[in-house]
């Protein structure tokens, strides 16, 4: 389904120089096999994003192997083992837009801006995470093998 990524494409028109190396996310089956940016994701940065309650927001809903993090969510599956259960491309799709895998999901779309209504002005037209942040998160999730 292409329309989802129109915002992404428009975004790259307006900010072409900065995003020049981004690839348009292409869905194959239930995965996005190709990285969104050329620079490899950094699992250390990815972990920091996942545990940050203002940035990744993941622990609002998920719990995971983060012994130093108190107060983790119970709305979603445990993140431990995510890298064993899913391929890199499947994880990327679920972060980019989990509704692609499950239309009824409550997991927010992290790399989509269209189809959202009444977004607060500070966030309007902005994705929850940048392409690079998504690659970092995916790289980190791939390390969660147990």
């Amino acid at each position, binding site marked *: 389904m292409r329309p989802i990524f129109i915002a992404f494409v428009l975004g790259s028109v307006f900010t072409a120089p900065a995003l020049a190396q981004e690839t348009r996310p292409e869905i194959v089956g239930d995965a996005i096999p190709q990285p969104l940016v050329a620079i490899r994701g950094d699992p250390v940065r990815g972990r920091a994003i996942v545990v940050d*309650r203002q940035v990744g*927001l993941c*622990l*609002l*809903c998920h719990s995971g192997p983060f012994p130093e993090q*108190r*107060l*983790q*969510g*119970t*709305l979603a599956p445990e993140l431990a083992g995510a890298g064993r259960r899913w391929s890199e491309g499947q994880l990327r799709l679920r972060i980019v837009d989990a509704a692609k895998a499950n239309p009824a999901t*409550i997991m*927010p*779309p992290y790399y989509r801006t269209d189809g*959202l*209504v*009444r*977004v*607060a*002005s*500070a*966030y309007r037209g*902005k994705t*929850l995470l940048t392409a690079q942040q998504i690659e970092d998160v995916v790289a980190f999730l791939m390390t969660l093998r147990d």
Partner: protein
Amino acid sequence: MSRQALMRLAHFSLAVLLVAFGFAASATEIPLSERKSGYEFMGPQSRAMQDDDTANPGMLSVFDGEALWNAKTGATNQSCAGCHGDATQSMKGAAARYPAFNASRGRPLDLEGQINLCRADRQQASPFAYESRELLALTAYVARQSRGMPIEPTIDARTQPFLDAGRAIFDLRQGQLNLSCAQCHDDQWGQRLAGTVIPQGHPTGYPQYRLEWQSLGSLQRRLRNCLVGMRAEPYAVGAPEYVDLTLFLMWRARGMKFEAPAVRP
């Protein structure tokens, strides 16, 4: 088949369809008997604080409100008591019936809206700002007179459209997180959002004292907090959307005990 039999069949199929559809649309609604006030999700200390008038910080506002109830003000130099007399009698049950339809406005008003309307029309005084000390105090004083009474807003031909509008907002996925009120409060109540237990979202105790706010706050303030959490654009202060949502929430809590001023974590 006779024409009559066909008609009966048609009616029957329609009824089956309606039931099936209605069920699908409301499959996640909380059954009446399983509803719980936010009170039931609290620890013993917070409950004790709410239950004991000498410990409940909301009671300071109630006393403040009692003074305002009796104070003459505005161009007409009228007090609330001048029209309504003893609030412990005349306001018994009132808050549990709001939002209520107001013919002159052609729409339901919440308690705050009604108080400000009385100020404008009867006292010829300027309306109180939302979340002002005075409006919270008067609302708390009036609300206190319904404590323990069942919530029962009037749903009829005039209020039904506003109830429906409120329900539509409740079900709308909105904001950058693309969440609806229903997804948290119908489907995920009892779960932990990070450390916080998600309540069913019943408006039983407003205005209420939140320890997190360190003050008394209105239901609108609570609703804005949830909208901000969803990264949705909050409706403007005093917007009709809040009243519609409040009417829906009160209807959703129909029969539950009113408990203002409640205490929440």
